[in-house]
């Protein structure tokens, strides 16, 4: 198995997905690294590698979540978003962006981990079969899960036609 090639191909998208899933870039990077260690040690027999990596890394992130939340809380005075922020540009624009990020994060957090995972994997272009494999559900129920998640987010975010973009 060419792990270097797989890492080059999949780690950027996996990292982006995990940051969207958790809001914690450091935890996301740790989960990517650990998932690749496990890929070498115990390669998947049946799943496609990409789906396997997303499933394993999401589980790692969720297992480590409690510890990291404690650690983040200890970083006194630094809200979670500050850890993700890039250097400031125009202050007003940054404020708007921070506000939008906060709203999107809060809305995503209202979804169950499985629904959030399905929605975010769909945004990365996974098929319903792959999403079902990764989330442990049936291919037929992915549409229901995604519809439910979109409707819930639309109640909190400007997603619907006719509303503000």
């Amino acid at each position, binding site marked *: 198995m060419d792990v270097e090639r797989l890492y080059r191909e999949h780690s950027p998208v996996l990292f982006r997905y995990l940051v969207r899933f958790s809001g914690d870039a450091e935890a996301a990077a740790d989960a990517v690294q650990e998932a690749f260690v496990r890929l070498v040690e115990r390669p998947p027999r049946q799943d496609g590698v990409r789906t396997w990596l997303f499933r394993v890394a999401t589980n790692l992130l969720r297992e480590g979540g409690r510890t990291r939340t404690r650690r983040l809380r200890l970083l006194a005075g630094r809200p979670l978003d500050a850890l993700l922020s890039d250097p400031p540009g125009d202050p007003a624009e940054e404020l708007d962006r921070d506000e*939008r990020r906060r709203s999107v994060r809060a809305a995503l957090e209202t979804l169950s981990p499985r629904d959030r995972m399905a929605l975010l994997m769909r945004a990365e272009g996974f098929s319903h079969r792959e999403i079902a494999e990764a989330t442990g559900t049936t291919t037929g129920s992915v549409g229901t899960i995604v519809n439910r998640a979109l409707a819930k987010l639309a109640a909190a975010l400007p997603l619907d036609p006719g509303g503000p973009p």
Partner: protein
Amino acid sequence: MTPSTREEHVSRDDLLRWLDGECAPGERARIGGHLERCAACMTTLETLRTRSERLDGLLRELDVERPGDHLPRRPPARRAPRWSAPVRRAAVVAGLLVGAA
């Protein structure tokens, strides 16, 4: 235009599957034909499409601009197997014994 009274609307789940390209060819054609005749289903489809596109835009707001600040460029080195430390120690001891002999 509305479909004939006997033709049922397409469910939201099936419209989402249609949008995601998840339908088999026959089903895709059937739903596509219905959409041409049914304004209500077309509106629902447009809602699902807009929700998906706008969510994609909002998700991009969460992305880290320089992932390389967090993510190493290369995969991690393989973890040392659990037996490696005792084996290394044994090899050192064996080497000492051989050296002493």
